[in-house]
């Protein structure tokens, strides 16, 4: 088991290296440059030169990469060329917003998706089953920004039931020790703030959850259907076990395997979908930060953010891989 984990971890290193190199080169290849983006088209050559020297952009590519990697290993992602603040700091400030959103969306997707997929499979051929299949097909196709937009329009603009943007009502004076707005309310004893934060999260979370939800329903249903046809379920039935035991121990355990692999991939969906959702709902998260950084050719910020997101993504997939090894003993042999 330990060897399995170790082997997976070992694969991680070259991937992360390759990734950082790719990112580094990519950022340098972007048309224009941070100097021009920040100083404007009419900047004098001297000003540009000074800027480049300040940010070490005049040294050779290899030198830059070496010093960059040296700093990355020490968890120093440099300073934003736009605001001159450390990228890591800016990232941490905005990360909780995105995480909150992503977690809320994941929660919705899993809590609704798995039971729906399971019951659709058990009631194969009924209206529940067929409508689930159709709904999930549509769910995958509807762009996140459209759905976000639709929800915003119906529930916020027209009906006024829920807020249309931001994370919190500015009029509530709340402290933010954790920067996770939902938690902050609980931690500071201000439950009003928590409810308000949740209200702000509902619409974007539903929008973001739509695609993962659709996929989870699809895969859960297909997986449960497959398992129900397996011989070992027939054996379990022949043993006279109760429906509950069969569902729990024989059906669900096996059916969840393919589902859990996709959770890793879902994270990717969630992270990139968050970019769009944050834009629609004006949430101050990583997504909006990244879009602005790209617009402003903020090298350090872009590099830093994409690197962190990719690392998170890779780590999540690794964890999923490992947990798969725990659940399915056959995998450990490989």
């Amino acid at each position: 088991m330990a060897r399995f984990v170790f082997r997976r971890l070992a694969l991680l290193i070259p991937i992360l290296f390759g990734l950082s190199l790719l990112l580094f080169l990519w950022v340098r290849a972007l048309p224009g440059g941070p100097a021009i983006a920040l100083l404007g088209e009419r900047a004098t050559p001297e000003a540009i030169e000074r800027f480049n020297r300040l940010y070490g952009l005049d040294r050779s590519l290899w030198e830059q990469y070496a010093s960059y990697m040296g700093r990355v290993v020490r968890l120093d992602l440099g300073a934003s060329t736009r605001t001159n603040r450390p990228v890591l700091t800016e990232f941490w400030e905005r990360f909780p917003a995105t995480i909150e959103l992503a977690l809320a969306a994941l929660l919705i997707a899993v809590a609704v998706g798995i039971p729906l997929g399971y019951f659709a499979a058990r009631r194969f051929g009924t209206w529940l089953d067929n409508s689930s299949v159709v709904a999930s097909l549509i769910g995958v196709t509807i762009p996140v920004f459209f759905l976000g937009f639709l929800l915003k329009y119906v529930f916020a603009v027209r009906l006024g039931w829920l807020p249309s943007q931001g994370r919190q009502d500015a009029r509530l004076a709340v402290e933010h020790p954790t920067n996770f707005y939902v938690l902050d309310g609980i931690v500071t004893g201000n439950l009003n703030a928590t409810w308000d934060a949740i209200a702000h999260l509902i619409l974007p979370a539903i929008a973001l959850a739509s695609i993962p939800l659709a996929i989870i329903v699809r895969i859960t249903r297909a997986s449960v259907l497959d398992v129900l046809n397996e011989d070992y379920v027939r054996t379990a039935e022949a043993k006279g076990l109760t429906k509950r035991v069969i569902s729990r121990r024989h059906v669900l355990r096996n059916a969840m395997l393919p589902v859990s692999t996709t959770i890793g991939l879902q994270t990717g969906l969630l992270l990139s979908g968050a970019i769009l959702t944050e834009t629609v709902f004006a949430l101050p998260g990583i997504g909006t930060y990244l879009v602005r950084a790209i617009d402003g050719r903020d090298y350090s910020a872009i590099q830093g953010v994409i690197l962190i997101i990719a690392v998170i993504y890779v780590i999540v997939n690794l964890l999923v891989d490992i947990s798969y090894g725990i659940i399915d003993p056959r995998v450990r042999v490989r």
Partner: protein
Amino acid sequence: MNTTPEPLLDVRDLRVTFSRRGRRDVAAVDGVSLTVGAGQTVGVVGESGSGKSVTSLAIMGLLPRRGVRVEGQVSFDGRSLLTMTDDQLRQVRGRDIAMVFQDPMTSLNPVIPVGVQVTEVLERHRGMSGREARDEAARLLERVGIPDGRQRLKEYPHQLSGGMRQRALIAIALACQPRLLIADEPTTALDVTIQAQILELLKELVAASGTALILITHDLGVVAGLCDTVNVMYSGRIVESAPRHPLFGSPRHPYTGGLLGSVPRLDAPRAEPLRPIPGSPNDTLPWPNGCAFAPRCANRIDTCTEVTPDLEWTGERGLRCHNPLAPAELSAGAAR
């Protein structure tokens, strides 16, 4: 028919019809009746598609509910199985009637340890738990010839060979000392040498515990060593039924004769050609139009394609044929 003591299992006129969207209904089992007495071993022999497996699944109530219609009467120990509720059936299965299936490779849940798959039956029907269940499970595994039972409890199915898995499945089936065991092609998916071992095991266990056994197979050799009575099925109906020696010594139905004749014999001259039954199981007439076997039958006469033969009993032998084979001379030994 063996009627003096009340039979343990009494199947009367069992009919199983499959309907699929856009296709005609198929009667996989078309009026099958058989009985199994306590402690008896009954064989059901037939090609694939004869309906033998479906019969056993119908008895156990394991057929899917959608697209399947089951008619007839199945009575076990005086109780009607076909009219039981789901909960009642779950009490009977595993405890009073148990089943072993064909493919040991896929019949065990790959992600839970073998031990759990044994103890869960013990927990369910014998109320055991914890250490007691595990001890009994280990004992059961060793009883079926799996050495080091304790260790095996923690292992996963993929760590066991095919033969071991089938043994484990037999152990699971017999764990609660059922009155009846149904074995559907228990050795078909195994190597020949292992086949013999498993059959020996079955024979021994069944004799020791007095369990009745229904052995379903396409292989006559399997049946010869084990069964008291043999039922030969063709296209959903029983065409011949007889105790072991009379059947093998003197088969009456041309199909049975064909099955026996198609088995190569070690003492036959090497140049002698193999004698398969001509045609394939698809070359059948539906029963209502005459004898289903007629297209392939060497003994065919005109009546065979006009009148459907009924199953007629003489003593312990049942025969569904208009023009059966002549009774073999007993002194000539085997059928050929």
